[in-house]
């Protein structure tokens, strides 16, 4: 092989063009804002019901149950999201990789059992509300199915995005982690 010093000098002679530091908005921030707006819009009808049926304990209980479930789930989601985005980039790579893999996996695990519990809570709250509104069996079934289908679609979309974007990165980092772990 050519002398390392020669290659180093050749490498350091490279002249690359550098672009202006473009001011682009952080994509993640835009996504998080969109999600916050979506959650707020989703909760508006429930607050309307709450205002108009405040006399019914079942309605109030159901709506509060739904709101609490959404807030708890979103809090858990954002907490994990924050942990992923606040990685210590100045840490040695070996340590960095281990933390990054653990946090990304932790974020994904939220969409396993915890997500099913969340959907269950939503459905329970919804049916409690409908019970308070004296809805018929058909309405109970329709709204329950609607929530379940929306959540299922959301989960599928998320899974697809995860497989396409995050999984390859996790696999690559995990392979490096294995390689470095025993040293």
């Amino acid at each position, binding site marked *: 092989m050519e002398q390392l010093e020669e290659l180093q000098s050749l490498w*350091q002679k490279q002249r690359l063009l550098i672009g202006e530091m473009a001011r682009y908005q952080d994509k993640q921030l835009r996504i998080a804002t969109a999600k916050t707006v979506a959650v707020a819009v989703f909760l508006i009808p429930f607050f309307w019901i709450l205002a108009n049926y405040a006399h019914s304990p079942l309605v109030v209980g159901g709506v509060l149950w739904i709101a609490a479930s959404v807030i708890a789930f979103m809090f858990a989601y954002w907490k994990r999201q924050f942990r992923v985005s606040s990685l210590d*980039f100045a840490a040695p790579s070996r340590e960095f990789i281990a933390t990054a893999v653990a946090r990304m996996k932790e974020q994904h695990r939220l969409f396993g059992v915890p997500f099913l519990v969340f959907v269950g809570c939503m459905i329970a709250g919804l049916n409690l509300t409908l019970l308070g509104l004296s809805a018929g069996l058909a309405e109970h079934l329709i709204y329950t199915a609607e929530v379940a289908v929306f959540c299922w679609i959301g989960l599928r979309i998320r899974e697809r995005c995860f497989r396409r974007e995050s999984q390859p990165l996790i696999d690559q980092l995990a392979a490096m982690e294995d390689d*470095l772990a025993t040293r």
Partner: protein
Amino acid sequence: MKHAEKERLFVELFEENKARVLRLCYGYLNSEHEAEDLFQEVMKNVWNSLDGFRREAQITTWLFRIAVNTALMYRRKLRRGQALVSTGPVPDSAAPPPAPDDEERLRALRSAIAVLPAQDRLIVTLLLEGLSYREIAEVTGITVNYVGVKISRIKEALEKLMKGVSHGTA
């Protein structure tokens, strides 16, 4: 850290190291266009990490850690429809630009680096930037001995690959 001090340190770091960091990005991705994107992410992370910077740490090691870790987390993306304006060559050194013959060798070197595994691409780029084994160990978090083992394997692989490129087989 006060904002003005942070800004001054950032500008100083940027001016002194932009060429080295950009070459690392390019060595890792082998695409000038994407290297710029990664470079911007590195600089964003440098800015975000400045508050935690301890003066006792060597600044080059600290900076390369951020660059390497950002590269590891970098996801190749299709462009976001945003054009970056090229503003001219980086005044990275007083050295003259490579001669045509050197250009050929440089191309062979880049092509050879491009087919190495991600981790090896970063290690060899750090080596080419003139970091010592100890400094590479500090950046990556592995032992100096293992850095030595890795580098000797990488050199072997590069030698084969560069021969392949110069014979037109790679």
